[in-house]
């Protein structure tokens, strides 16, 4: 999941473009967080955390794995 954040255009934690700024700290804390922003478009995701796992949906791109 962290790889997806790194690979995307936008940071899944802070929502800003991966190319802007240092997202190292985002990657560290993402271990304990679900994604909050779509890596493709940077929109906020609708996230449901479950006891085991989570689901996340982008209004533009659908389900996020």
């Amino acid at each position: 999941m962290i790889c997806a954040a790194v690979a995307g255009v936008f940071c899944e934690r802070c929502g800003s473009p991966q190319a802007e700024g240092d997202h190292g700290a985002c990657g560290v804390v993402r271990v304990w967080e679900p994604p909050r922003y779509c890596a493709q478009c940077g929109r906020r995701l609708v996230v449901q955390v479950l006891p085991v796992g989570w689901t996340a949906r982008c209004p533009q791109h659908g389900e996020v794995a």
Partner: protein
Amino acid sequence: MDDVLARAERVVDEGIGLTESDLRALLEVGDDDLPALLDIAHRVRLRWCGPGVEVEGIVSVKTGGCPEDCHFCSQSGRFDSPVRSAWLDVPALVAAAEQTAATGATEFCIVAAVRGPDEKLMRQVRAAVRAIRETVDINIACSLGILHPDQVAELAELGVHRYNHNLETARSYFPRVVTTHTWEERWETLQLVRSAGMEVCCGGILGMGESLDQRAEFAAQLAELAPDEVPLNFLNPRPGTPFATLPVMPVGEALRAAAMFRLALPRTILRFAGGRELTLGDDGIREALRGGGNGLIVGNYLTTLGRAPQADLALLEELGEPIRSAELSALSKAL
């Protein structure tokens, strides 16, 4: 310092919590004395609660969009938080309860980010509690904010085993954490819950900028309440909240605090909850379970992720600490 540790030692035999001034002194135990403090807290827990660890899972039925302004919470609609509103349907709640029961947990808590439940939420909780009780062998707890007496009565009638409503912090510090409702309003709900016969679950979050005096004050206030369970959370500073830039509490400070809560509340379930992964880490949780704690939330939290349940279960096995059964919990309470 030896004197306060000697008084703490007496809690092992007497089962009576320390005074607020002694609790305050424990928070300044030096590093050399910390192992002794943790050992005393562990023996208090074994003597008055037994070796079992109560394991619980939680899920958010209604996420985000909360009208309140709890400064630690990413679900407040008043802050620029990335958390968006979400709503969990009844089949998903049943599935979450099944996931939780599969870990060996005996308690499953349904949580909503609200000031208090409206009829829509009560309808959802009603349906979920009935469905879970029909199909899953687990105690059900709820955390739905401030309740009216008729709502308390209904939850008790539905068979809700325990109600969580955290005071969050010391009465003197609460106005710095929440301004949209009062500590006293929360206290009133807790009294209603107890009167209705549900178990009371009430704890808070450490590391929100409170002083050591206020940390001891909080423990003394919880001791006055005498809840069946005290969940101890450690601040996980969330983006967009007023507490976003507060530091994560150091592990030694957290261990002292946990032991202090045990010595305030010898007989309660002291459960490590949100933020423990950041504050305690893998080694710290091991020490904390040998330093007064006897409860864990396993799996994920409401908006953040936890350790894999298997990792916590393996740790309990390694420590020789069995998961506390629902029957033993009831027996312990009766005694």
